[in-house]
């Protein structure tokens, strides 16, 4: 006899709310992966999300966990405050590249350097999504944005910041990797990394960060599918995927390079 089994369904840690994300925006994908991880690790009831300011500002509506909303860039500081008083909770921030790499770089670096036992999901979409597509520290050279209408000029605005690599240089960091969300194979790899990042925290190994290359079809001015192509063709050459720091206890389970 033939019967059916469910091989994929919506994770429990995602709330029932609809997202406000644009069609094809991989913020949604990242949310799903985090939620799946929370389900798998069975930590929904002790996880605390620190949402940030960016398109993901309503993340607290989309996850079914206790959550708060940090001022722009300050999520790692807020997460520090929470984790220090509640070391048994699993604390993660979800931050965009404007939030983490621009205004919040200080808080991110210091949390990492202190080895705060928190997890950061870092969405690099090379642009400020929420405010309408301005240049981010992660925008590519030559990338046209609403605040670099002639394309990012390295002489005026410098070069893309490589957060996963930067973090990997700090001793307090247990896990720092970059993954991409532009196709199924990479999404699967991203998921594994997210899971390892949370496991790093559960094993008290210190700071963990997963940088996810993500699309912003709206502000890039392309269709969702083309946005995925742009990640593959333009972003990945600048932002190589890979493991930049993997603490010893996690190493056996981490795939090299993640490509």
């Amino acid at each position, binding site marked *: 006899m033939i019967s059916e*089994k469910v091989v994929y369904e919506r994770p429990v840690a995602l709330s029932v709310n609809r997202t406000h994300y644009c069609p094809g925006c991989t913020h949604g994908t990242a949310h799903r992966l985090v939620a799946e991880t929370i389900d798998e690790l069975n930590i929904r009831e002790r996880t605390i999300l620190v949402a940030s300011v960016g398109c993901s500002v309503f993340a607290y509506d989309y996850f079914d966990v206790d959550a708060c909303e940090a001022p722009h860039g300050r999520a790692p500081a807020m997460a520090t405050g929470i984790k220090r008083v509640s070391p048994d909770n699993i604390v993660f921030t979800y931050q965009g590249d404007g939030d983490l790499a621009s205004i919040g770089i200080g808080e991110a670096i210091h949390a990492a350097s202190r080895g705060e036992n928190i997890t950061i999901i870092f969405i690099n979409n090379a642009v400020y999504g929420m405010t309408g597509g301005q240049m981010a520290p992660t925008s590519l050279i030559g990338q046209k944005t609403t605040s670099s209408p002639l394309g990012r000029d390295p002489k005026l605005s410098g070069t893309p910041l490589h957060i996963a690599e930067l973090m990997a240089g700090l001793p307090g960091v247990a896990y720092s990797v970059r993954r991409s969300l532009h196709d199924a194979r990479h999404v699967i790899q991203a998921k594994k990394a997210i899971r390892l990042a949370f496991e790093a925290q559960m094993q008290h190994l210190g700071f963990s960060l997963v940088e996810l290359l993500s699309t912003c079809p709206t502000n890039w001015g392309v269709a969702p599918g083309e946005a995925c192509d742009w990640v593959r063709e333009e972003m990945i050459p600048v932002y190589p995927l890979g493991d930049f720091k993997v603490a010893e206890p996690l190493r056996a389970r981490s795939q090299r390079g993640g490509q």
Partner: protein
Amino acid sequence: MAHGRIFIDAERCKGCELCRTACPPHVISLAPQRNSIGYYPVMLNDPDNKCTGCALCAVVCPEACIIVYRDVAVPA
């Protein structure tokens, strides 16, 4: 060959078509009607039962609006 099917929550779907691109046997297509939010959702269009239940569509779906089923043989 494995056989499966998917359920798409058309009210959540935003018609981004990432699933359509990801589907190996190309059994997902755009629906002709907008949903109530105004998007054209996708639908399973699989007259020949080519869906394998591989779940790649679900893996890429940003809206988590696909449920994937796969046939299993149940010992009678």
